[in-house]
């Protein structure tokens, strides 16, 4: 049947069945986790269950919030800057085929370099501070943004370039009215890909360098054997990462629907 392979959009299932079908694996994991901790009777230094983590979160929100705020600022700021810079460079190199051909392989290579391994170098170069964390996120976002925007600028609808030439459009008009709109879906894809990495990269940078933020919170409490707080930091970072991904995903879906 043809309909077998399409999503059932008009589901009439009651809300709790929908909830279970969406989150069963996550719930199962939490149950197993808690059971594992209880059964093994771990010393809290070694491992804690989800309840302990949650209660620490609820009882000491200020600590989490202040650190989360910093990590968020770094992640968002780095994400935005990286996207903007990457797109700008892509636009600038769009004007010259040669420059574009020169930079793209370089960018593709850098996009596949383990940036996390570069953090120690950045730390030694620019110091063990928040600017370096920001720089790390910028680097992680910059290269995919450049690669995707470049390819997007060149993936024009067939015949459109000829059309614009026939209409006597100048280079800037072509950029503004044709290439940039064509590039937008690709830019959105780059955004989606980088969004969840941004938070995680910021956290790793903070962890390595000992600057404030969720990464630092994590490291500090791991050292102190305050495992609930360390896991709590990890949990908050996970939620932040998921949230950013969902937002970026929504943006990308929206652009995809309206622009293609």
């Amino acid at each position: 049947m043809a309909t077998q392979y399409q999503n059932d959009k008009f589901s009439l299932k009651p809300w709790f069945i929908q909830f279970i079908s969406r989150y069963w694996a996550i719930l199962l994991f939490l149950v197993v986790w808690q059971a594992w901790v209880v059964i093994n009777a771990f010393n809290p230094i070694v491992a804690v269950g989800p309840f302990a983590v949650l209660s620490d979160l609820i009882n000491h929100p200020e600590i989490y919030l202040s650190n989360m705020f910093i990590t968020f600022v770094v992640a968002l700021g780095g994400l935005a800057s990286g996207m903007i810079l990457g797109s700008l460079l892509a636009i600038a190199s769009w004007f010259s085929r040669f420059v574009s051909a020169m930079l793209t392989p370089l960018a593709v290579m850098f996009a596949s370099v383990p940036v996390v391994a570069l953090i120690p170098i950045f730390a030694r170069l620019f110091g063990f501070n928040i600017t370096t964390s920001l720089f790390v996120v910028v680097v992680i976002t910059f290269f995919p943004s450049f690669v995707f925007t470049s390819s997007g600028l060149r993936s024009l609808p067939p015949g459109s370039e000829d059309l614009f030439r026939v209409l006597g459009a100048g280079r800037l008009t072509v950029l503004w009215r044709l290439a940039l709109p064509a590039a937008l879906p690709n830019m959105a894809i780059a955004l989606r890909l980088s969004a969840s990495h941004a938070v995680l990269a910021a956290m790793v940078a903070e962890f390595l360098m000992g600057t404030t933020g969720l990464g630092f919170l994590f490291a500090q409490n791991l050292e102190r054997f305050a495992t609930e707080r360390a896991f709590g930091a990890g949990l908050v970072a996970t939620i932040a990462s998921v949230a950013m991904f969902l937002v970026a995903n929504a943006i990308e879906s929206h652009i995809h629907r309206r622009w293609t």
Partner: protein
Amino acid sequence: MPSNRWIKNALPGALGILLFLLIWELLGRTGVLGLTWPPLTSVIATLIDPSKTALFLRATSASLTSAGTGYLAGGALGLVAALAGHLIPTLQEGLSRFAAVVNSVPPIALASVFLVLMTTESTPTAVAAIKVFFIIFIAVQSGLRSATPAQHDLFTSLGTGRFKRLWLLEVPTMLPVAMSGLKIAVPVALIGAFVGEWFGASRGLGVLILNAMQNFQISMLWSAVLLATLVSLAVYFILTMVESIVRLRLT
């Protein structure tokens, strides 16, 4: 001629890379960025220093082993999970969301958890596996769904059973997409291994890098990072070739 075209396309790219290397060298020579940016030549010198070769080789093989094992394990897990979700639609949503959440857990948190569950030596493998799992899961899942409605109609009209449809249509369609995923998962596996190593592993490139950073051994730091990067790029390059062969054969 195709080979001429290939050269014409590769030349500017090669030029770009050359320029980059040149700038690196100049920055180091002139000392503009201080001691912490050595010239390329001295980094290479440290790398090929015979007294250090054994060290680098041990570290590289340790990281490659953990990353490789994690890559295979995570890939296999991702494949199985995607197939399960595809064949049993009720499981699909839950699995996808779980995978997405697991992927969003910071690798450092993952590493600390695995430390509890296993040794410091297998933690890098586990972290790499988790990261690779998600990528392969998404790639296979998306690939299995990418057969066109017309192709599905063809199989329906031929009266095809579920498993024959999977094997004859959905799997061949999935392979090119899976290859892209396998390619992307390579640097990810290495990063996972490095992060895992930072939690107490005795060997590996991640260990070298961390120690060099903490002990202010600049040339060692750069050499280790360069080596890690080169290894990552080399494997990525190999997989890119495999990917184009697969695409050529199947599309």
